[in-house]
């Protein structure tokens, strides 16, 4: 048993634990924090595979950007702590049953499977240098350029649909129009009315 395996086991079991906490904890802030943890842990798993760029990018993008935004939203919205309702308890046994069956199936399949396999798929991407970043960049912009472009298209679509689904033009909203503010004249503001004589 080498050190890599021990690290893997520790971090992956932690990852499973935090992932479960994400969906079971009743406080949304807690869930989000647990999600941050799980991202960190999976970043470690990337590191174990020698993909340092991906692990850093995972932390930067997901933890640094996505989750912070998410936490902001959660806090600003003041969401109440969700109560565990009756349905949750009702379906728990069934869920656990399915969970167990699923895992048994997978275990039945893959018991002792990966031990004797010496198929290191990752190794084949070390093309131009030892640096993982360079390699990734190289294949991304040569072999997988089309996929890369399509991913860009997907992002565009994501932006487009997010805007179209959330953007509402509400006539009751009060907002300032700077152009009109600058444009204003004295007589628009001030109206002199002759008072009545007593």
């Amino acid at each position: 048993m080498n050190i890599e395996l021990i690290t893997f086991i520790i971090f992956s079991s932690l990852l499973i634990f935090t992932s479960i906490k994400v969906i079971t904890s009743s406080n949304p802030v807690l869930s989000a924090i647990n999600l941050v943890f799980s991202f960190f842990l999976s970043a470690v798993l990337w590191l174990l595979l020698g993909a340092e760029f991906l692990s850093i990018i995972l932390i930067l993008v997901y933890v640094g950007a996505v989750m912070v935004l998410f936490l902001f939203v959660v806090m600003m919205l003041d969401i109440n702590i969700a109560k565990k309702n009756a349905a949750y308890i009702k379906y728990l046994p069934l869920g656990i049953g399915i969970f167990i069956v699923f895992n048994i199936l997978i275990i039945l399949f893959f018991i002792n499977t990966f031990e004797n396999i010496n198929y290191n798929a990752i190794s084949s991407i070390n093309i131009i240098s030892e640096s993982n970043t360079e390699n990734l960049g190289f294949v991304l912009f040569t072999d997988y350029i089309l996929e890369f472009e399509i991913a860009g298209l997907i992002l565009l679509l994501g932006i487009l649909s997010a805007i179209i689904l959330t953007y509402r033009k509400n006539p009751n909203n009060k907002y300032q129009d700077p152009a009109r503010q600058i444009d204003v004249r004295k007589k628009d503001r001030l109206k002199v009315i002759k008072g009545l004589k007593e």
Partner: protein
Amino acid sequence: MTALTIILLISPLIGTLLLLTCQNRSKKYSILISNISILISFLLSLFILYLYYSSNSVPQSINVLTFADIKLFSLYFGLYIDSLSLVMSSVVTSVSLLVHYYSISYMKHDRSFNRFFIYTNFFTFSMLLIVFSNNFLQLFIGWELVGLSSYLLIGFWIKKESAISANYKAFLVNRVGDVGLLLGLCLILLSYSTTDYNQIFEIKNSIDMDRMDIFGYSFSALSAICMLLFIGAMAKSAQVPLQFWLPDSMEGPTPISALIHAATMVTAGIYMVARLSPLYELTDGVLIFILYIGSITAFFLGLVALVQNDIKRIIAYSTISQLGYMTAALGASLYSLAMFHLITHAFFKALLFLCAGSIIIKCHHEQDIRKIAGLRKVMPITYLAFLYASLSLIGFPLTSGFYSKESIIDAVGYFGHTIPYLMLLLSIFTTTLYTSKIFFKVFFGKCSLPKSEENNFKIENDRQMLLPLFVLTAPAVFLGLFIYDPLMMGLLFQDSLAANELTISFYNNYVINSLNFFLHSFMTINFLILFAGLIFSYFYFYKRSFDISIPRFIRAVIEKEYGFDSLSRYFIPRIQNNISRFLWKDIDISTIDNGLINNTSNIINSLSNKVKKLQTGYIYHYSLIIISALILLLIIMRIAH
């Protein structure tokens, strides 16, 4: 030629559809559409016929449109263009055209004027479909459509109870024949695996020796096919024992009777047998059967006509009898003679019916000839037309009927079929008797019409009703003379009919030429019988110089149509009623409807109601189901391998 034929064929159908779409338009509109569509067909028939003969074409079978091509058979719409189909279509369309024209005035007071023309147009179309079909499926479809439209037309006056029962009867009897036709069709598919006429004609030689075993009986497949098909023809062409629907069909409007009897329906059976003559030639025994059926029909049903008093029923029985002649000719392998008689008969019988129609209209729908008399002065044109038609019917020398009928009788005798010959010979006498019975009773004696109309000579009837009489008189009397020689020499139906050599040998050895045949006929026994019949009826019906009392028993037998009447009226309905009641109450309602169908549908409905609840709408239920389904797939895969 093909395109023209297609137009010819579908013109009446288009007429029908047009009439259907504008039901509420004026009568003028219906008249125009129906008559023009038939007129187009008629003119095209003549034109194509002319083209065909002038260009010495050979018969051609064209597949126009394929609907379905299954391994067992292919359903397609095809055309068989040859002399036989073209001549037949000319006859059908010409009679149909005249009947249409005649009907304009005959039906002018009817409320369902439009409906009438829808039916008649469709009727003509169905018949043309049979005439031009080049495969059995199309024949069958046309056959059924003819049955359907005849059903609709016989029961045209839907409020008249007798008409309803008559069309019901016609339909049912035709169903019996259809069963035969259908079985024949199945057998054809089984043994030839094709429905195309030409292909069947080509492979017939290899197949006719095949024997089939059904219920331990062994017989030639071809004979069985021909026999079954002939059963279909028997029903359509009203041969014993499936003849009893035809007299009842007189309940329909008279132009329809003319149409059914002359052109569009009863001839279908004869036409089919003639069309399939190459097959019939190869059978053993079937032809003899046909011959006997034909001669029995000709003789015995002619007798029945003698005791009838309804003018239309008499003519109906005479039709059956004449169809018997045609069938007998088919049975004696004299296909061209059968077709010849079919053609001449179509014209003179149409003429007879149209005359009868005029008489009926004039006498305010009185059809009993005992109550009609002395119309000779009132209706001179009808009188003359009727006279000519009658002469043709009884086969008076030189008329069309003479050539066709005498030839059949003589040829049957010539080829040595003694018993049929005698029967056919005797029916000349009966034919003469019943024809003269109508003739003398209706046109002579004291006028039965009210005084006010008696003197109204000017208006015999509408001109529209008289014109067809004029037109029809010509072919009814003279057509035979013109086409007799080419027909008998085998030129007319050169490539279409089998066994032409029989007719030709008869012609060369016996007839020699039409004039000779005419002269010769005065010296034959046929003429003697005819003459005797005329003399007898002159004295009996006209002078009333003597009275014959037929034994009650025989009279009753004949009046009851040898029991067929009661068979069709009492026994079969009763048995059928009981069986159907059983099938209805015990089998259909309690077992199938309630037991199988309703229960199943109820179960499925309640099942559907229950399972609908699975669709809860909660996302976590859905994801649960999807994950379970995934696991299910894995388990299935695990079990399977």
